[in-house]
Structures are given as structure tokens and as C-alpha cells.
């Protein structure tokens, strides 16, 4: 069995705001082993980015409160001091962000920014750090890294900036790479390249990846395990196979139905999930997805637990509906309203 790098147990994150307490993450648990890719999926406001930022200690602040555990190689990162956390960031856990256009400092050269990351964790001189930076840029596929290392961010295209961000995140060889919607701001063709790059570098650097996205299609190739989040909670969790071929949560169906697919008959329109995500200050009672769920019934007013309801062990969901009923009806959502008989 591979080394267990991360173990998150019932993590809860809440923020005090003027309008009340926001329960941004309301109980999430997972484990991550070396060499694995965990996908976290959900729409905006589902708590996936807050989860990622909390692992990095980036949500700390006077208005933030945490419960649960984030065990990195056995150390609870929630209890580590701010100063000690600096030693983990970048060094043990690397992170890349959604918008490469704004995530790099516009006034420093690409190389300087990566050298800065290396020198903040390792005692190496500038020359060594620089040649390592050039090597990193080569590994992430930047052409002519010897000259491009002295470019400013605005001289890079969006895809190249994201590659540079990946090089920076990997510069100290972290064990865990957290990618928070790294492809959202990029063209579709570049998206595929970035996903492929992350997947390849994960093996080169022998690390594990947490890949956060709202688009299940993006992680279809690389994820080993998938967590679907809704309103700060995990609503479905299973292997990629479980989630794609036997999804148990109507919310997951909605996500699957919103991806255009080539391997299925083409629906008239892609599926949209009606309504808006619920308020995290006053969430609805019972199942949080109930107000938007087309199949909601009486029992949904009670809170469903995250349990194993199907034959496959480890495939968990939060839905009261009968498993056979779901298997009969989910294709209406996943394949679109009016399916031509295939």
C-alpha cells in the first residue's frame, strides 16, 4: 500500500460575517495516498476552494473557525503555528490557482518568482536556484526556457503562465499538489494539455494531486477518486468508475448531464440544474439539494447521512431515493430531456 500523505477527518470551516456565520465547509473527510489523484467537484460556493485553501492554511484569520483534523504525514496542520505553516506551504504542499493571468506578480520576472519560492525553503545560491528554475520550466513544456526565464508574466500566454505556475508549485518538490480549477480560465485545447501535464508531473515528482473543478469532464481521465460537494458537504464519493457509471446523487446527474459527450446520443439541450445553490448561513433543512431536486419526496426533509447504499463498498452518497428507482430514472437527466432512441 502506498504511503498515506493526507488524511482529512470531518473538516469544518466557518467564517463569521456581518450577515451571520457561513458554514463554508460542513464536514468533509478523505484520504490521499502518494501517486493518487483525488477530484473534488461542485459548483461555485460548494466549498471546494475553501477546502483546498484550508489545507494550505490560507483561510486562517480572525473570522475563520475550524473543526476536525487535517493530518499531513500524521501532523495536524490545523494546529500548526502560522510560522511553522510557512514551512509546509510550497515545500510539502504546492498549489496552483484558477486564474494564471492574475496569480503571478506582474512586476517581477517569471524566473525571479520561482527562484524566490526555491530560496524560501532551501539554502541554495541564486545560480543554482536559477538553473533549477530553467530545468523546471523545461519540464512543464516552456520552449527556450533559458531566455523565457527572464520574461515578465505579461509576455506569457495564459497557458504558459499556468505552466509557469505549475513549475513554481513543484519547485520544492512537494508531496501534495493542489490544483484549484487550474483549467477554468483557459481555452479547451490548453485545458487538455494542462490536465495531461499535471498527470505526467505527478508521476515524475512522485506526488499526489487534489484536482478541484466544476467540470467533471476535466477530471474524467486522471482522477482515481471523486468527491462531489454541494453546499459545503460531500454528497457523493466514490471511485471514478462509481461516479461516472453508477452515480447515486441527483446532483451528480445534473453535473454529468451538463457535459457535452461524444459517446452518447446528442440531446437537444444540455442539462441545467434549476435554481441557485442554497445560502450557507441558513441552509435548508434535511437534504441541502432538496429545493432543486426534481425527485424530492417527503423523506428528504430529514437529513440523509453519507452512507454506502449500493453494492460497491466505498461508494457513499446522501440520497434517500431507492437505488433501483435512481438507476431507472437518472438517464433522463444525464442524457438530456428528449433522447432519440439510440
Amino acid at each position, binding site marked *: 500500500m502506498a504511503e498515506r500523505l493526507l488524511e482529512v477527518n470531518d473538516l469544518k470551516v466557518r467564517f463569521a460575517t456581518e450577515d451571520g456565520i457561513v458554514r463554508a465547509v460542513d464536514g468533509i473527510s478523505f484520504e490521499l495516498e502518494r501517486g493518487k489523484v483525488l477530484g473534488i467537484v461542485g459548483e461555485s460556493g460548494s466549498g471546494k476552494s475553501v477546502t483546498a485553501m484550508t489545507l*494550505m492554511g*490560507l483561510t486562517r484569520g480572525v473570522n475563520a473557525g475550524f473543526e476536525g483534523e487535517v493530518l499531513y504525514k500524521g501532523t495536524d496542520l490545523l494546529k500548526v503555528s*502560522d510560522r511553522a505553516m*510557512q*514551512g*509546509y*506551504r*510550497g*515545500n510539502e504542499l*504546492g*498549489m496552483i*490557482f484558477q*486564474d494564471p493571468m*492574475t*496569480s*503571478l*506578480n*506582474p*512586476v517581477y520576472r517569471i524566473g525571479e518568482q520561482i527562484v*524566490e*519560492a526555491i530560496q*524560501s*525553503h532551501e539554502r541554495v545560491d541564486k545560480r543554482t536556484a536559477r538553473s533549477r528554475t530553467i530545468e523546471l520550466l523545461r519540464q512543464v513544456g516552456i520552449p527556450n526556457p533559458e531566455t523565457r526565464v527572464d520574461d*515578465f508574466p*505579461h509576455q506569457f500566454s495564459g497557458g504558459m503562465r499556468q505552466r509557469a*505556475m505549475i513549475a*513554481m*508549485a513543484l519547485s*520544492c518538490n512537494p508531496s501534495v499538489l493542489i490544483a484549484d480549477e487550474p483549467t477554468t480560465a483557459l481555452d479547451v485545447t490548453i485545458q487538455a494539455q494542462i490536465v495531461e501535464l499535471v498527470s505526467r508531473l505527478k508521476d515524475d515528482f512522485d506526488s499526489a494531486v487534489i484536482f478541484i473543478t466544476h467540470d467533471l469532464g476535466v477530471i474524467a481521465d486522471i482522477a482515481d477518486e471523486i468527491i462531489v460537494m454541494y453546499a459545503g458537504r460531500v454528497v457523493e464519493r466514490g471511485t471514478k468508475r462509481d461516479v461516472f457509471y453508477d452515480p447515486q446523487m441527483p446532483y451528480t446527474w445534473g453535473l454529468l448531464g451538463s457535459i457535452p459527450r461524444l459517446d452518447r446520443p446528442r440531446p437537444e439541450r444540455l442539462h441545467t440544474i434549476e435554481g441557485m445553490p442554497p445560502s450557507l448561513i441558513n441552509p435548508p433543512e434535511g437534504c441541502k439539494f432538496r429545493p432543486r431536486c426534481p425527485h424530492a419526496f417527503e423523506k428528504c426533509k430529514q437529513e440523509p447521512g453519507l452512507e454506502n447504499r449500493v453494492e460497491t463498498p466505498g461508494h457513499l452518497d446522501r440520497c434517500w431515493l431507492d437505488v433501483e428507482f435512481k438507476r431507472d430514472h437518472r438517464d433522463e437527466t444525464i442524457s438530456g430531456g428528449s433522447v432519440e432512441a439510440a
Partner: protein
Amino acid sequence: MGAYIIRRIFGMLLVLLAVSFIVYLIFIVIPGGDPAQRIAGKVATPQNVAAIKHRLGLDQSFIVQWYDLVKSLFTAKLVSYYDGTNVVNQIKQGLPATFSLAIGAGIIWMGFGILVGTISAVTAGRFSDRVITAFALIGISMPVAWLGLILRYFLAGEGGAVSWFPDGGYVAFTSNPAQWFYHLLLPWFTLAVLFIGFYGRVLRSNILDTINEDFVRTAKAKGLSTRRILVKHVLRASLIPIVTLFGLDFASVLGGGAIITESVYNLHGVGWYAWQSIGTQDLPPLMGVTLFGAMFIVVFTLLVDLAYAYLDPRIRLT
């Protein structure tokens, strides 16, 4: 870059010409501006006035008058209508006092402005931020003339509560550096207070904006120390707009713009000269000091643009 600077210098000359034209125009159209009438005195005959007009060239067309004036200014031959002193010489004599005041005050206001702005942003919402904000608003609201007089009255000379400071006047740096410093302390402070408050407020909001930038989050995610993030990433970006403010404010004070401070503390600089000349409605010195001030503004505008291109590599000078 070279072509850019040459083009800008041509533009600057045009601006200066336009300024001289407007100053002249204003002087001609304001009531009581006719210098011949004033020189001739209260009981002047029309012939008397006409003779003075002719001597000063005021009977010629507007354009010719303006041209003669500007030409004599640039050839350093322009003299005051009032006492016949050479304008360029008078401005030169005012330079040491004006430059001493401007440079000292500039260092003080930039240094303290950055300091209070940073402290206030870092402790935003807490006690120190509130205290600084209150003082900054008081500083911005106090008229310089009032503050200068109050400080001079209470802290300097005879008749005040204490006489810790000399009662106005300027001592040349070359004759006695210690006295030079001592005499300038109150004027520096008086002039700097407004700017400290203002720069502090601007910097505070710049820093608070920058702290939420994505690249600052990236810097944190790299594992940099809080101090390094603040100085290298946040402050660097936040100071860029301050450079513009400083360039223009400093140019204005260097060019004799601190008229009130120089007058209140009896510093015989360029601003003081301007104040004297306004009192006697003396056109040639006013033209001289206005163009002198405008020259600093246009030169520093160019310097600010060059500094901007250096500080922010995204900016191209074209």
C-alpha cells in the same frame, strides 16, 4: 526611448508657451491690472500714463507685448515694473530657501506617509489604525496658513507659550548647517503634515486593495514570510500610484508652490517672492515664477512617466 524623450521635451516647451500666454491674458483682463496707471500714481495726467505705457511697451498689440515679455524673460533681461529688479536674479536668490524647504519636507512626508499608511493598513480596523486615521484626517483638514501661524505663535519666538524654535527666517546651509536645520524644522513639519495625512490614506487603501490580489495569495502559497510578502509583493505594487502623487507634489513645492509656508515663516524663497509680487500686482515676476513652477511640473511629469515604466514592466513608453 531617446525619441520618446525628445518628443516629450517638444511637448513641454509648447506647454510652457501656453502657460505664459494664459498668465499674460489673465493679467491683462483682471481689473486694476494696468501697470502704467499704478506707476503713474494717484494724480497722474493722461499724458503721464501714456508716456509710461510707451516706455514699458504697453501701447503695442497684445501679441507683441506678450512676445517681448517672454523674450526678455528667457534672455534674463526681464525686470520688475515695481522696483526694477531683475526677475531671474530674484528667483535665483530664492532657490536655496525653496529647495531646502522642498527637499526636507519631501523626505519627511514621503517617509512618514509610507510608515503611517503601512501601519494603518496592516492593523486595519484596530486601535492604531483608528488613531492614525483620525490624525490623518485632522492633518488633511488643517489649513497650512492656520497651522503655520499657530505653530509659530506657540512654539517660536517671543510672546508664545515656549520659544523652542527660531521665529521664522532662513539661514543658509553653507553658513551654518545646524542653524539651517533648526530654522527649517517648523516649516518642514508644517508643509509635510497635509501630505503625510493624504499619502497615508492613499497608501492604506492601495495596500488593502493589493492584499486581496491573487498574486499575494500565490506568494503566501509559496511559503514566504509575512514580512517578505508585505515588503516585496504588497508594498512594491501599492507604492506605484504614490510615485505619481509624489512627483507632482514635490515638483510643485520645488517650483515655489509652497507660497503660504514660505510667507508664514518668512523664508525668502521663490514662493515668498511670488507672494510679494502678487501684493504689488507686478506682472514680470509673476510671469517668471509661474513659468519657473510650470517648468518643474512638466519636467517631473516626464520623470514620473519614466519611473512608472521602470516600476511596472507592463507599461511601454511610446
